[in-house]
Each structure stands twice: as C-alpha cells, then as structure tokens.
C-alpha cells in the first residue's frame, strides 16, 4: 500500500500592495502536487512528536502548581478560553473576544462558578472576570522574561499541559489587520447601506439594506469615507456597536468584524496559515506580545504559559498562524491588571449607552 499525500508547495511570498497590512500578502495560489510516501508517515509513533503525550508528560512537575491557578472559561456552555487566576478571591484573567452570553469558570477541582466581566482591555484583548470564590491559588509570575529558545508549557486543568513549545521571537508590536463589516455602501458620500453580504458580521448583527449608519461606538459617522476608515481601525474579531437610522428611527446593534469579505477566497497566506488547525478570530493588533511555536486551539488561549521553573512568563492571547502563538508578557499583564481591577476598564453597559445616544440632549 502506498499512501499519497497532497502537498502544498510553501512557495515564496510577496509584499502586499497594501502598506497598512501587517504581514506581506502571498500570491493567491494553492498549488498541489502528489508526493507518494511510504507507510512511514502513517506510523509515526506518538513519542516522536515534540508536542506529543510522552514529551508533555515530562512537563508534569512543571505545570503542577499552575494548573491549580487555571480555569476553563465557558460561554453558553462551551469552552471558549482558558483563564489565569490572578487573585485568591476570584479574579480570573482571560481572552476577551470569545466571551459572549453567560460566562462560567470551571476550576481544576471541578467547581463551576458564574463569572462577571469586570474589566476589558480591547487593546490587548484581555478581560478580567470575577467569580464568587475565596482561597483560590494565585498564579505565580516569573521575574524572568521569556527568552528565545525557552520551553513554555500551556497549562490546563489536567495533570499534563495542554500543549508545549518554545519561545520563537522576543516581545514586539504586532500591527492590526483591518476589520471587515461586510456591507456595500452607496456611492454617494453618505454611510448608507445598499447591500449586506450574507454570513457577514453586519448580517448577523441585523443590519439591513437602506440603513444609515450614524455612529460606530461613540464616533459619529458623517460620511462614507469616515465609516470605511473607522471600521478599518478595528481588528477582525472586535465587536463594534453600530447606531443605525432605519425608517426615521434610531436603533443600536452589535456586530463582530471579520478578517475578510465573506465569500472572498482566501489568499495563499491565509490558506497556508489555516493548514493544521483553527486560528483565533482576534489574532492581530497587539501592542506588545512575544511569539512561541506552541500549536494551540483558539479556545486554549487566555490561560497561563509557564517556563521550566513552573512560573508564569505570560498569558496566551492568540493563536495567530500556523507558526505563531502570541502571549502577553508578565509586565504587560501586571500593569493591565491594575487598570482592570480598578474599574478604569469596566465594560460598557450597552443599555445605558443606547439610552445616551438616543436622548435628545445628545
């Protein structure tokens, strides 16, 4: 028997014409060729994998403490992220963008709590949750920065880590990629919706043809151009509040931006990056993150990343590509924690905001 594997030539990549795009675009090509391999590739023993169960088991002592400081964060019954316990009386950090609806946290011992979102940093995509629990084990942060080539383990609530890898690139800024709402606007320079693309963030939010978009969050949108520019400032995965005028009435909806137009074929870069697993929706636009090569699922972000000392060197914030996972470092997390806890970054309360917008005084 001869196994046949369809391969994709890595190819070269081309800088994009769009200067504001973070990563260079690739020529859109999915070239395939059939390369026959022997039985070998079907019989790779799991001990051989650098992130296989045997290697992960060597990290058992490394993650033992931190696993008590880790929670599984669920939204509407599904795990959407991991969380890092940063306060003994129920403070848990997690990735913000996957949170929606009812949020609960399940601890290592199995106890499950309803969680309140007390703070959100949209800039870093980090949220602080509060659960009604006491005497939790606080995560220990390392005083060392994660140097390139250090082992890192993504801690879960099990005996062995969720996944392991090494630090690939020191901390740096990852620029944003423009978000897409998925609407077509009137050619005249007013923000009038003439078409809503199926499966788009706009459609899911309930935007309809002939709606006039008058505000995005708190920013008034007088023209078509300003609408386009404002939307592009957000990242794919960001939720924006749209204030619409429909039949002379004002209404507010919340839309999640996507990374590309629904129905548009993905570029070669997007195609290659999608090979081998799902990526976080919000995966670009971070002021300071370090990169590691751990292969994570999007719902394994938000929890602690520990070094071989078993101390946290950061919090996973996005699965960004086939070769990259991003983590916030300890300094960023501890600085943010202060603002998140103090209420300075309290999440907006939509009902109050909506009232403010429609009030005549505005």
């Amino acid at each position, binding site marked *: 028997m001869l196994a046949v*594997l*369809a*391969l*994709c*030539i*890595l*190819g*070269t*990549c*081309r*800088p994009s*014409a769009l200067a504001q795009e*973070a*990563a*260079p675009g*690739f*020529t859109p*090509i999915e*070239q395939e*060729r059939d*390369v026959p*391999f*022997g039985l*070998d*590739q079907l019989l*790779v023993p799991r*001990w*051989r*994998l*650098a*992130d*296989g169960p*045997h*290697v992960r088991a*060597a*990290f058992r002592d490394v993650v033992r403490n931190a696993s008590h400081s880790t929670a599984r964060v669920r939204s509407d019954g599904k795990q959407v992220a991991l969380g890092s316990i940063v306060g003994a009386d129920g403070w848990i950090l997690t990735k913000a963008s996957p949170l929606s609806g009812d949020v609960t946290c399940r601890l290592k011992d199995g106890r499950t709590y309803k969680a309140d979102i007390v703070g959100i940093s949209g800039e870093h995509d980090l949220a602080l949750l509060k659960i009604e629990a006491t005497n939790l084990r606080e995560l220990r942060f390392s005083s060392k920065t994660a*140097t*390139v*080539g*250090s*082992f890192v383990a993504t801690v879960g609530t099990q005996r062995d880590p969720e996944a392991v890898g*090494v*630090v*690939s*690139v*020191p901390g*740096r800024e990852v620029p944003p990629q423009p978000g897409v709402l998925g609407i077509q606007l009137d050619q005249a320079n007013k923000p009038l919706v003439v078409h809503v693309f199926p499966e788009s963030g706009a459609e899911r939010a309930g935007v309809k043809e002939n709606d006039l978009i008058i505000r995005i969050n708190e920013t008034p949108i007088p023209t078509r151009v300003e609408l386009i520019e404002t939307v592009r400032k957000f990242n794919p995965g960001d939720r924006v509040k749209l204030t619409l005028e429909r039949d002379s009435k004002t209404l507010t909806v919340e839309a999640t931006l996507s990374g590309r137009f629904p129905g548009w*074929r993905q570029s070669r*870069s997007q195609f*290659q990056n999608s*090979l*081998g*697993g799902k990526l976080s929706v919000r995966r670009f636009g971070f002021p300071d993150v370090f990169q590691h*090569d751990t*292969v994570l699922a999007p719902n394994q972000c938000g929890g602690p990343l520990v070094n*071989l000392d078993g101390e946290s060197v950061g919090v996973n914030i996005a699965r960004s*590509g*086939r*070769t*990259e996972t991003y983590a916030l470092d300890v300094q960023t997390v501890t600085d943010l924690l202060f603002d998140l806890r103090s209420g300075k970054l309290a999440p907006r309360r939509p009902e109050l905001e909506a009232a403010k917008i429609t009030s005549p005084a505005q």
Partner: protein
Amino acid sequence: MSAATELTLQARYPRNVEDLQRIEAQLQRVIKRCLPSTVALQLGRSAGSGVIVNPEGLILTAGHVIGDSSRSVMIVLPDGRKFTGKSLGANHDIDAGMVQIDNPPDDLPYTPIAKGTELVAGQWVVTTGQPGGLIEGRAPPVRLGRVLFREDEVVCTDCTLVGGDSGGPLFNMRGELVGIHSSIGPRVTHNFHVATTGFENSWDRLLAGEVWGGHLSDEMLANRPVIGVSGRTIQGRCVVVKSIAGLPAAKAGIEDGDVITAIDGKPIDTFEELSRIVFFQDPGATVKITYERNGVNRTVSVKIITADEIERE
C-alpha cells in the same frame, strides 16, 4: 555538548524537568550560533529564506525560491545588513538552490553543513526562517521539533513552517545545517525539508549555475504574468480570440476580435510577440495596450496578474 545532554537528546523522549533543561540549554546555544546566518531573500516581488554556509557568502535555499539562475537577489541578515547577490543553480527534482552574495564582508555569520548521515527519526531539530516574509522588528522565529520520518532526501518534521520560510534552515542540536525548508501539508506535523545530503550530490552543478529537474515548470507556470486573453496571429495581426471576463484585459475593455497593435507604444504584429512581452512583465505592473476595433484605435491600461490568480477568480 555534555554527555548527559547527548544521552537526553538520543533518548526516545525526555522523562523529567532535568532532561528538558538540558534540551533547552542546548537549544539556546544552537540559536546563538545559528540564528545570525538565517537570511531573508528577495527576488523581484517574491521573498523566501536561506542560510549562509561559508565565510565566502554562499547561501543554500530552496530551488523554488530562486526559480532560475543569474537572478538578482537582495539578501537581508537578522542584524539588518543588506547585500546583493545572484542566484546560482537549482535542482528542482529535490527543490535545492544556491545564491552567492556579491562582495561578502569579512565578518559574515555562517553555519557549517553537517557531515555524514543525519536526520534519523526522532532526532531533535531547530528551524528558523522568515515565515510570512521579512517583517521589520521581528527576528527569524525559532521553532523546535523532531524528525518524524524521512524518505530519501525528503525529511518530515513537526517544526511548523509557512510560506516565506521556504529555503530557510533546519539545524541539528550541534548547531549544524542539516536541511532546507521546502513544502508543507495539511497538518501541523507535515513540514518537509530537503536534507543537505541532497545538496552534496548536486553541489558542483549548483555552484556552476545549472538549473534542472521537475517542478520548476509548475511554479513558473503558476507565477507567469498574464493579462487574460488568448489569441492567434492572423494575416500578420495579433487577434484576440477570447478576452476572459473578469480578467484585466476584459476589465480594461478589450473584447473578442480586437486586434492588438501595440504595447507601451511598441508596435506588435503577432500574438507570440504579445505573449513574450507580457511574460517579461512584473505581476502588479500596468501596461498600455493599443487595440483596433472597427477601424478605431484605442489605448487602455491593463494590469498584469499571475496565472494562478485566474484560477482563483
């Protein structure tokens, strides 16, 4: 390398934190030694990776990164230094290629090629490269993995790769070059490299600038510049038989039956001339095409795209 580290690396898998610490310390030594020699390569509008293998400025890369010999290459080192160079030979059967830096400085970082047979299943390996192309402020990302299997000169590891990494280096844990990145498959455990032993057999031919073998045609065909017309030479005129809807020529207004009389002001009489001129354009560039319809001449701007873009539209 200490005996303990050697034993740990040879074992099936690490058993405890001490084993992991030994691997980590060795990995950091390898990075320190090898990272500076990882380069980004730019050829026209395409980009890939490579690795400097001697103080004279010889670079190994993938055959598909350079495509052909005697092409101008811009080489960017992790320390920011930029050099110009030329592509040498390519063996497209195994996806091996070479580039030579023009006027190399005395202090060029390089990584020696491992001697003898390497890359046995389970061996720990390190990769770098420029995934996604050169990104300002980002050092070549380091990835650790293991050899999963090998068939002849093709080595599969679980060091994740993506476009732009092509031609980048695979190192052993002694800090020697053992492979060059070539292709990926649908899973994160499908990352394919050409073993440097594959280069050895082709060495003199590659140095001499010879280009031979297999899938050059595929890549070249996919990247060939086009405007989206088919045609024929009829009675000494370049006639458009089909202007494909949605492609640049049709978008610019060129229709079936039009006669193309000039490109960028240069008169042409045959479809072959049109093909040849378009073939030497850069994708993304614009050409001015003059065509005749019902005795009237018009000149339009037509964007050059690559053949693979057509398949996707």
